[in-house]
């Protein structure tokens, strides 16, 4: 039981990771998906930071007052990963804005419906069900 509680930081990481992953999979709203993705990534940040932590340890400052240091490298690494995470979230949100402009919705099933319609139109045209199947390249541009 000691080890179960003693590893509480890893349980928190697992829980957060599960929550984030679930949101990404289960939610329809594109922004909520991104929030889930961020929670998922944050869980990994915690994993790294708790890895380098030594109880009672402090930042590696050369001074007689402190003898016990935490490992700073995981913090540095995860700083990079946080930056990457922010870039991903920003890019994702920018895409959501553009999707909203193009589809008028950020609900996944509505977007998929519209995509399916686009697809169907292409197919109808391919099999000659549409009257205007004789098109010039110029009219395709429009």
């Amino acid at each position: 039981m000691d080890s179960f509680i003693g590893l509480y930081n890893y349980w928190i990481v697992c829980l957060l990771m599960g929550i984030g992953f679930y949101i990404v999979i289960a939610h329809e709203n594109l922004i909520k998906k991104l929030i889930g993705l961020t929670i998922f990534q944050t869980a990994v940040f915690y994993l790294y930071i708790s890895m380098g932590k030594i109880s009672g340890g402090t930042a590696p400052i050369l001074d007689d007052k402190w003898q016990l240091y935490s490992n700073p490298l995981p913090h540095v690494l995860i700083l990079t990963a946080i930056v990457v995470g922010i870039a991903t979230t920003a890019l994702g949100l920018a895409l959501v804005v553009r999707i909203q402009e193009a589809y008028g919705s950020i609900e996944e099933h509505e977007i998929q419906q519209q995509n399916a319609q686009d697809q169907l139109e292409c197919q109808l045209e391919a099999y000659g069900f549409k009257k205007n199947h004789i098109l010039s390249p110029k009219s395709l541009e429009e």
Partner: protein
Amino acid sequence: MSYHYPVLQVIIPLIGAPLCLLLQIPRLVGLFAIVVSGAAFLISCGLLSQVAANGVLVYELGGWAAPWGIEYRIDYLNSYLLLLVSGISTVVLVAAQSSIKRELPENRHTYFYSAYLLCLTGLLGILATGDAFNVFVFLEISALSSYTLIALGTDRRALTASYQYLIMGTIGATFIIIGVGLMYMMTGTLNMYDLAERLPEVNHSRTVLSAFGFFIVGVCLKLALFPLHLWLPNAYAFAPSIATAFLAATSTKVAVYVLIRYVFSIFGIDYVDSVLPLKAIFLVLGLVGIFAASVSAIYQLNIKRLFAYSSVAQIGYMILGLAIGTKLGLAATLLHMFNHALMKGALFLAIGSIVFRINSSQLNHLAGLGRKMPWTMAAIVIGGLSLVGVPLTVGFVSKWYLVLALLEKGWWVVTVLVLLSSLLALIYVWRIVEWVYFTPPRIILDDVREAPLSQLIPVWLLVLANIYFGLDTSLTVGVSKLAAEALFGLLGAGH
């Protein structure tokens, strides 16, 4: 100067990308990108010859020695792929000049080229680096810029494709970083060479096992292994043609490289065999992927999507080579990585020319184009035959070695299945031939002409490379065998 080649390779496009934004004139930006990518190509030629002469190159960034500092480690495997990626990128950029002008509004040209160069930086960085965490960083550089490249496509579905790729790609990259973190936890090092030495001491632990599991799933998402490939077809279909040509030819191959590097150089094939029936998993997923994706490709109406599904199938062949688990199988995988890049580069560039002229990649719009654009269509046919694996093309060479490796192992059933799957490829290539040459035009093609020379030359350069490397296999087969032997550790570290 030549001492700094390993890092210049990555630094030049990295600096080139923001310079593109400063160079506001659209015409110059394109030329500038060619120069940057060409410089990277020349350097990678130099690197391959240096590796051939002196063996493994080790470059310490900032003069910090390996376990503490970051090192770039170039052996046969990376230098061969560096050459491939920078070469394809340069050829694609030449064709990009006219194609991008047609497909993108002028104010987006600079963004396109700077995202393209960043993507190139990421891919070259993944290949060059000898540091496990650096792989993640470069992976994200290339991934973020490829999301941008895909979202630049004109169809609105490009946006959703890019979003879907972003979600799946980020999950994959996060899994990889978890794997790297867990490995660091056990060994205290991030250097690949160091990791390979220290992991055996701790590899009985559950931490290393879960690191391995996370890592494999993450990389398989990135390389679009069969059940994890869902992001790929839409992303390739709706991206600008040039972006598709570049990504299809290089990015999944680089992910396969990461898989090979970790499985063979870091975890070691013995460990992998002892904890997970990875070969059996790869065998099944590879075969199912080949068949499922080829059948999907047959039903596609968009020629870009068709070849995107065929890419998933070709990744199946590469994974199958790994599943064999012998030197020859690994050599076949490496060979197919190189050859598939040549085929898909040629095919997607040719499709780019079609889109340039008729502004559509729907199969039914291609009807009758065989007479109007004979050279482009001939390129597609040759590329398609190469995909099928017809003799005199590179596709034949890689299938030949794959079959040899399978027979060496005595896997008759798999051999027959591989040969049968080529017939599926023949069906989807034949569908294109039928539309292009034997169907009356569905759209008015009066003012459609052959693609401009600036696009035909890159396309045919790659098509001729397809034929040349199909006839003269000394370079490709030689280097992939050397790389495979080095990975199995029979020749030391690449000598």
